């Protein structure tokens, strides 16, 4: 199982990251997956209270967040028997429209790929120590106390 987990303090382009991931797999001689599932999450331009959002601030627990992301990804990938996993997550200040999370799973069949991708995304939303703070266009801010509905 090939696993790669990254935290980014600056913007990343999901499609570029996916192309690199594909190249790395080919260079290391890992065969192509018959099925790949990809999820990209981006920052909304609207805050929870409906006002205009200027930015999202993402705090994490250095050391634990990386360990926990890797642990969650390994558990999930082994449970679904998939071949490869790429998970990228932003930290710091993220602007509306920028990618906040990328999860990509490669497997032999679409079922495990899609199920693993969804399960890992939900796991990292609820069990990886990240905290979001909304900065509104009027200068006010608020820490979020949970996730948006599925």
């Amino acid at each position, binding site marked *: 199982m090939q696993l790669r987990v990254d935290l980014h303090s600056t913007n990343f382009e999901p499609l570029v990251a996916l192309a690199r991931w594909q190249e790395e797999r080919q260079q290391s001689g890992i065969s192509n997956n018959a099925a790949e599932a990809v999820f990209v999450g981006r920052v909304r331009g609207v805050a929870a209270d409906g006002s205009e959002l200027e930015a999202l601030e993402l*705090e994490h*627990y250095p050391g*634990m967040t990386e360990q926990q992301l890797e642990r969650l990804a390994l558990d999930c990938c082994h449970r679904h028997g998939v071949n490869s996993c790429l998970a990228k*997550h932003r930290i710091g200040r993220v602007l509306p429209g920028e990618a906040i999370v990328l999860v990509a799973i490669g497997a032999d069949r679409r079922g495990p790929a899609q199920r693993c991708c969804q399960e890992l995304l939900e796991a990292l*939303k*609820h069990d990886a120590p990240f905290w979001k703070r909304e900065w509104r266009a009027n200068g006010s801010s608020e*820490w979020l106390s949970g996730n948006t509905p599925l």
Partner: protein
Amino acid sequence: MLFAGLREQVGWAEQQWPADPNCTSEITPRQLWLNLKLPGDLGPQVRVAINRQFADADTPLKPGDELAFLPPISGG
């Protein structure tokens, strides 16, 4: 260690808590929450991590442990 909204509510991010060699009973995160005068009771909305792993709030702490109280998580 405290994070995010909890850190800002309380006004500090990190403290050292000296181990008491004369204390016969081991201290737990739940007891430490009270000793540090953190707000209210340690409810289910705040999770505990010991040495960067989720843990039960009643786990006895050992000298050198890194304890963190984690407010509601919102990743992804």
